[in-house]
């Protein structure tokens, strides 16, 4: 390995090792496994097949751990890898260095891979420990727990590392778009395989990046009905025996897992080749027809301007400020206005409500991420109103914006005596802004709140205002 790649890998690992978040990430999967995996005779389970709980064996446990990782850990791992620690790279001096971008990409990727392998190892140890608690000791087989878990979870985890390297290579995906793309990719990988026909063989296994469907469905009828995460368990139904070993050893499955690993290993090469340097600021010219979105020229200063005096209503001023800053930029304001107007014509629960939430998610997390940065926080702490006042005003402002965007829908419904949209808009606005500011304050950035809220938005959309 080149000295450049080695140095990048070593410095990245050192930086991960010195951050507190690492220990949280190492603990997430083991702790979640404890709550998501059902012992024998349990009445709920992370996976159920046609209303039946799977009978717990070592390979089944390995597979269930794989499901925990695919559903829960992938987005968390992505957030963590993209968090402040390694996003703050000294690119100002790295990019003009003679070091090869491909070597740098591989170095960082290897560090991320080693970190995720550590997470997987911790989950394996936890799995063996859980097996000893939940199963007769002589049936505990650490080898099968390890083999199924790693066969299922290693490729998607490697892919998370690869995507994060790839998204760091281009200007657009370094920012919010990268989170959206990952979210789409992750949801897509789950939806694709759940909607598939559970066929066996290499091609079917290749469609299943998360890798748990083939071992799960092996030897079951095509019409079996899987649910993941809180499915209905038929009372009194017997446990179902799953042939996970058959699924893992089925022809094509392991070959497909290795193919996915190989694809993941090629992504850093692509990232190195398409790398675009950072820019200090905006360099692209705004096309003429979008000129009205630009802030325009500054007004000349008035030489007779006097010193500003404290406002009479500081709280109200703060609230107005927060509204203005969340809805900042003409593009955001135009979009919000469009949603508010569309409310006259489109149904609230299925169309304008989710649209309003999506806009609020982006606008609120961007502003929350900006204001919760360490340096700025130190400055605002010295101000007249405390950061807590600003945070409260932020939540109020977010709620008011949600109400404003939903005004038409709420009005229509209220006239028909239906308060549901009002309550929904209130809950959506308050919940979104509260989550945005809390997560932004905890993580000092916009990435985590945005990804978490996008996942919440997905559930809001698929819930569509209730049954």
């Amino acid at each position, binding site marked *: 390995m080149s000295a450049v790649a080695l140095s990048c890998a070593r410095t990245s690992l*050192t930086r991960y090792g010195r951050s507190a978040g690492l220990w949280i990430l190492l603990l997430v999967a083991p702790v979640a496994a404890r709550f998501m995996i059902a012992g024998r005779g349990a009445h709920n389970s992370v996976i159920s097949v046609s209303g039946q709980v799977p009978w717990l064996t070592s390979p089944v446990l390995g597979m269930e751990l794989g499901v925990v990782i695919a559903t829960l850990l992938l987005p968390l791992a992505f957030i963590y890898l993209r968090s402040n620690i390694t996003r*703050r790279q000294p690119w*100002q*001096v790295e990019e*003009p260095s*003679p*070091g090869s971008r491909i070597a740098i990409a591989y170095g960082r990727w290897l560090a991320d891979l080693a970190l995720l392998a550590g997470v997987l190892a911790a989950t394996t140890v936890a799995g063996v420990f859980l097996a000893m608690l939940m199963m007769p000791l002589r049936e505990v087989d650490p080898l099968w727990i390890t083999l199924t878990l790693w066969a299922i979870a290693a490729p998607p985890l490697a892919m998370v590392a690869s995507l994060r390297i790839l998204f760091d290579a281009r200007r657009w995906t370094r920012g919010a778009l990268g989170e959206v793309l990952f979210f789409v990719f992750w949801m897509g990988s789950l939806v694709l395989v759940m909607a598939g026909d559970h066929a066996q063989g290499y091609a079917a296994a290749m469609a299943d990046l998360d890798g748990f469907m083939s071992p799960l469905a092996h030897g079951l009828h095509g019409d079996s009905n899987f649910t993941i995460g809180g499915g209905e368990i038929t009372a009194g139904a017997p446990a179902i025996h799953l042939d996970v070993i058959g699924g893992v050893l089925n022809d094509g499955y392991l070959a497909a897992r290795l193919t996915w690993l190989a694809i993941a290993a090629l992504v850093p090469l692509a990232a190195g080749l398409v790398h675009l340097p950072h820019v200090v600021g*905006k360099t*692209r010219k705004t096309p003429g027809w979008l000129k009205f979105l630009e802030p325009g020229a500054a007004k000349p200063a008035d030489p007779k301007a006097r010193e500003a005096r404290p406002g009479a209503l500081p709280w109200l001023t703060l609230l107005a400020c927060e509204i203005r800053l969340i809805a900042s930029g003409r593009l955001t304001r135009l979009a919000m206005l469009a949603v508010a107007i569309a409310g006259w014509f489109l149904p609230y629960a299925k169309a304008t409500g989710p649209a309003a939430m999506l806009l609020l998610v982006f606008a609120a997390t961007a502003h929350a991420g900006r204001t919760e940065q360490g340096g700025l926080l130190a400055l605002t702490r010295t101000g007249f109103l405390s950061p807590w006042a600003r945070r409260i005003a932020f939540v109020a402002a977010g709620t008011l914006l949600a109400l404003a965007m939903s005004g038409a829908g709420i009005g229509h419904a209220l006239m028909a005596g239906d308060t549901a949209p009002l309550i929904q808009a209130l809950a959506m606005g308050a919940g979104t802004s509260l989550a945005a500011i809390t997560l932004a304050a905890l993580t000092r950035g916009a990435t985590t709140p945005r990804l978490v809220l996008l996942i919440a938005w997905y559930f809001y959309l698929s819930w569509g205002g209730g049954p």
Partner: protein
Amino acid sequence: MTDTSPTLRLEGVTRRYGRKVVLDGISHSFTKGLTLLTGPSGAGKSTLLRLIATAEKPTAGRLHWNGEPLPAARSALRRELGYAPQAVELPMELTAREFGLHMAALKGLRANEADAQFRLLLEGVGLAADANGRIATYSGGMRRRLIFAQALLGAPRLLALDEPTAELDSESRERIHALINRAAQSAIVIMTTHLSDGVAAAATAVLRVEAGALTPARAGLAA
């Protein structure tokens, strides 16, 4: 390695940001020795250094390194470049020494020699005692000295230094001037500054960036 003097030539270099023309067709040949760039804040000094350090591409015009035009000669230039930008997002969790070794690896230097040289450089800028302290614990001036020290790693024949002595006390400033003057004996050193102190006397040229143009200025003329 040849012992001919390094040359850097700018030919009609223009840099625009949107509609704003920051540098307008600048032509100049830089030779061995210390060149100071002065000029009012916002005139384009940092922009010019970014172009020279290949951190950005000119909108129009060309750079020539040792007679070869960029981008063909870009990697040749980068192998001999030391660059200290005005601000760097430093990896806060690393120690100064770890950061220096990482930069040395990116420059393709031998690890053990780079370690020895970086120790010497840290001592030169007065950071020897804090070499194993996390960058997160460094003050603003200490960070600036660290950024300066990493630029000197290897034997750069082109040094682009963006206000290396801003925010520093006079003692630190003199240490840095001594290192700059020594480097300028064999390298092209281009340095921006607002101050008309110490180095001005040793400078081979003082240039002024203003209104998109690069013009010779009297030595010691402050912005």
